[in-house]
């Protein structure tokens, strides 16, 4: 067990994730956040623009060469550098808990918009094959 905050992932997160996974692209993304009492990870579906959050994005990409369209779920953590240390610490130490609970292999950590440009996301999703 690595060092972790112990913030727990609610069932709501898992259920929503399964819905997302089985929706075949109808749901494009889920945004998660840590509750204000710092105890649980909750779904922040409606959050339009939050300062710091973790979100999942279903990336659709085309490998070309007749292999058709593929899609992959990407785990993106977004903690910009101007976030107070308290929240940086809590998000960073909870990240692995959430990722393991959802069992998503591909992930990106971003603290700057350039790191979540389409090119970077596509590269992670396709393992560098599509561009």
């Amino acid at each position, binding site marked *: 067990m690595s*060092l972790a905050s*112990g913030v727990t992932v609610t069932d709501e997160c898992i259920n929503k994730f399964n819905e997302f996974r089985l929706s075949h692209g109808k749901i494009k993304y889920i945004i998660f956040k840590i509750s204000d009492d710092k105890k649980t990870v909750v779904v922040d579906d409606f959050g339009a623009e939050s300062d710091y959050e973790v979100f999942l994005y279903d990336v659709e990409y085309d490998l070309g060469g007749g292999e058709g369209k593929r899609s992959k779920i990407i785990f993106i953590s977004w903690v910009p*550098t101007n976030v107070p240390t308290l929240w940086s*610490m809590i998000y960073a130490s909870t990240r692995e808990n959430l990722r393991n609970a959802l069992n998503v292999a591909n992930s990106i950590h971003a603290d*700057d918009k350039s790191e979540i440009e389409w090119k970077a996301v596509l590269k992670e999703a396709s393992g560098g094959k599509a561009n």
Partner: protein
Amino acid sequence: MNPSNPPQTAEYGGVTIHPSSLEHLLTYVASRLDEVSAIVLDPGYSTTRAGFAGEDAPKSLIPTYYGKYNADGQEKLIFGDDVFVTPRPGLSVHNPIGRDGIVEDWDMAEKVWEYSFTSRLTGAKASDPFHNGLNEIPSEELPTEMEVEADEKPLADSPLLMTEPGWNPAKAREKTIEIAMEKWGTPAFYLARNGVLSAFASGKASALVIDIGASNISITPVHDGMILKRGVQHSPLGGDYISSQIQAFSKTAVEAGQPPQAKYKTFPADKAPDASYRSLLEERTISEFKECVVQVWAGPNKLSATGPNGVSNEEVARTTPGRPFEFPDGYNQVFGVDRFRVTESLFDAKAAIPDPDSPFPAPTPSQTLPELIKASLAAVDVDLRPHLLANVVVTGASSLLYGFTDRLNHELMALYPGPRVRISAPGNTAERRFGSWIGGSILASLGTFHQMWISKKEYDEHGPNIVEKRCK
């Protein structure tokens, strides 16, 4: 009012406390114990930081050095800032931690660490409330059924989170939990790697942490909240080494300023403090010099290299305005290019100023920062390298040297021209000096962290080895 004298009855507003109300008070105190904050202890080579979890900075900051002298045939010890104050006869200064950052003298490490929290945080051990003179109770009214634990341990009420370097050996980790549990009686304990704490405090679960401390510079690759042990590198070219370089160059200083006009205090041979006391105080002055004057050549390229238009970097450095400094003896001087030279060997071993008297042997190329980073990244998985380079975290007090992060950035880009290099270094001085303490403070203050603590019960069941299983 002298705090060591018990307050008179009149100072309680003339009210005598009745035993029954005392009992209420004790129940109240016991109920408050649940809310007692954990203590965070971040022991370094030069300073030991301790404070309550949830606070922004450590309340107790003491030198890890301690003093030892003989008085009336008895050995006496001095802890904390007092060690700087009085040059007692025969006073010698020691450090329980070795230059490699690992504890050498466990008995003394325990005492220094204990002083760091008992002096400012927990207070002295509680004494029996019926006999400490604070409560006047007629002897016939003394309740007999109440038992007060005779020998209360200093941390009996506080969980303790401690930090450690990434190369701390298993034996030392077990010894640490043993002291915390058995000597200090802490009810819960956790030992966290300071590299992971610094990475988390920057919001990153994966990062390449570059820590520039007093006795060591270290590179710790962290992935998904775990240190990658094979990639941990450290070398002794830290703040103390830079101080030794300053001493080396001040011996060869060419242009003399005003000669000092100070009157020195002299000691008769039998009253003189040990030489180690002098070097401790010298180090203090040099630290001030380091903070005010010294600068790192910001790059690109080494200080000895030639810039793009044929002018050597040293010439460019020479044209920057010098900085004045006055030493305590009155000697003062404006320092020019020399202030860049003393740090250059952190990046370029050949630039070291030779000094046969220095306690530090001349640095080898493999001890320099660029080589340590290379060795560290070579030991981790190829796929992780670009990710680590995009998340470089700089921490440690000596990283505050002016120009340090600029130079590091240039060196990293020269070493790894392909991947994107991004350095994050907190601009706030306290966050740089106390990075891992602050990280520990936040974690230990979270209500949800309780599942991570190793409880006394678990320790009793599994023994000190539990720290290896739980604190990875």
